[in-house]
């Protein structure tokens, strides 16, 4: 009765109403930011008095915004590649191996995801100051890789769980070398997991704020660091424009992922 949608009775309008409100609560701020980025009001008055591309022009006219976006892209791309490779190997080891402490190791690999990221950020910052890696691209990549890797291990690990290993063995029996079998049989078979790992790793790096704040230098900033630094001064609509671009990018990746899933099912 309570778990039958058609027999909820008086509860039904209540649940539907509340869910609709929560949906509005979740979606409106995002819509609002996108709308304001085209609004003409410097003080972010809503609804805007008129519409304009002014903030986007300001955004693209300032080389520091552009430069930080390129830095973000570059770091995220490198982190994605490394995360997928390390994640594939680690997932393979955890999935196939029977060495002692496998479960503990799996838990260890996932810890950076659940730990307060500020602790990791401060600890890495201290180490990088000593190693001379603070404010370098390498430092950024290492930091972002730490939080991207758990996503890869989970996504590829799940895909490997569903893959029948005897198919790989069959390829080996047919004369393939173990690595040839892995690359030409296993990798394509778990490609959906690899794809998910790539998207999650990219987004984890692209969106990372806290680690990035500590890794950044005045000359090396990712987009979120630039937004953070600007936000601390004022709420200029240029940030709305930058945020809208970030959101558009996220939606694009999500649609890609959904299309990919659909394509696999068909």
């Amino acid at each position: 009765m309570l778990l039958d949608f058609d027999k909820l009775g008086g509860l039904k309008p209540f649940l539907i109403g509340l869910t609709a409100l929560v949906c509005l609560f979740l979606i409106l701020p995002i819509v609002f930011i996108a709308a304001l980025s085209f609004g003409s009001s410097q003080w972010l008055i809503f609804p805007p008095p008129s519409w304009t591309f002014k903030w986007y022009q300001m955004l693209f006219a300032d080389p520091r915004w552009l430069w930080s976006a390129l830095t973000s892209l570059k770091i995220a791309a490198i982190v994605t590649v490394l995360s997928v490779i390390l994640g594939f190997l680690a997932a393979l080891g955890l999935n196939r191996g029977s060495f002692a402490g496998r479960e503990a190791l799996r838990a260890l690999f996932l810890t950076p995801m659940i730990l307060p990221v500020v602790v990791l950020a401060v600890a890495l910052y201290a180490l990088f100051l000593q190693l001379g890696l603070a404010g370098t691209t390498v430092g950024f990549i290492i930091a972002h890789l730490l939080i991207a890797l758990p996503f890869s291990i989970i996504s590829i690990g799940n895909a490997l769980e569903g893959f029948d290993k005897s198919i790989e063995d069959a390829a080996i029996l047919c004369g393939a070398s173990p690595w040839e079998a892995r690359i030409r049989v296993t990798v394509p078979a778990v490609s959906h997991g690899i794809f998910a790992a790539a998207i999650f790793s990219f987004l984890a790096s692209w969106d990372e704020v806290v680690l990035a704040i500590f890794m950044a230098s005045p000359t090396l900033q990712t987009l979120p660091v630039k937004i953070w630094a600007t936000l601390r001064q004022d709420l200029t609509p240029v940030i709305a424009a930058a945020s809208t671009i970030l959101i558009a990018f996220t939606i694009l990746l999500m649609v890609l992922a959904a299309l990919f899933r659909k394509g696999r099912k068909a």
Partner: protein
Amino acid sequence: MVLSATTDGGERKIRRNGSFGYVVPALLLIAFFFIIPVLMLLMRSVLEPTPGLQNYQELLGSTTYLRVFLNTFTVAGLVTVVAVVIGFPVAWLLAIMPDKWSRLVMAIIVLSMWTNLLARTYAWMVLLQRTGVVNKMLMSLGIIDKPLALVNNLVGVTIGMTYIMLPFVILPLIGILKAIDPAILRAAALCGANKRQCFTRVLLPLSLPGIASGALMVFVMSLGYYVTPALLGGTSNMMLAELVAQFVQSLVNWGMGGAAALVLLLVTMVLYAIQLKFLNPNRAR
């Protein structure tokens, strides 16, 4: 696992010895850039400026820092309660509503979850400011006469953090609620239970492990949050993560920074251990 056990023993041995090698690159990364730096930071908390526990004495003995702890737990607790109270009915409906509609709601939840954290926080800074939409709406509806202070205080942090944490309550709960057999509720109704009794005696107790697990997760995640409290909260309600960052960035006091980080780390680990031991829904079965 079962399949590999049926293959030839010698071949299996080779593969077993080899498979540890696969985890080595990831293990090296974690060891050098996660375990070692965290341990080094914790060492500094007992070594700087002089060896001893004076950093911890100062941290746990002063009312200034005690207020930060108190505030951290207050915000995390408030956010957890609000997110669970709002999130449970939504998850309930999502678990039973037709697929067509639940897919739309899920898309909205996932979109908000993957939207950049700063973009979401910025949205709330603008929405909640004195001349913002929320204040204007409340004023035009005649609920208030003059703008309320909604940012740089507890209200702002709670709204911004609840916004972020809601998906983490809703998503796991859907699975828990879907796993409950509707026949149990029909049986309760047949035995004469009214709707309220069905809810409080059957549905709620059955979903309680999921609620507790989700609530604890949200509580722990909220404890360590930095960005949203720093932007939506005021100076008078600083949270622990901000304190850690402040010690390191503005005060360059690594001893105190390390001590505050250890406290945050310990609380997080203890709560996660409780989660794994008592509230893991996979293990309860």
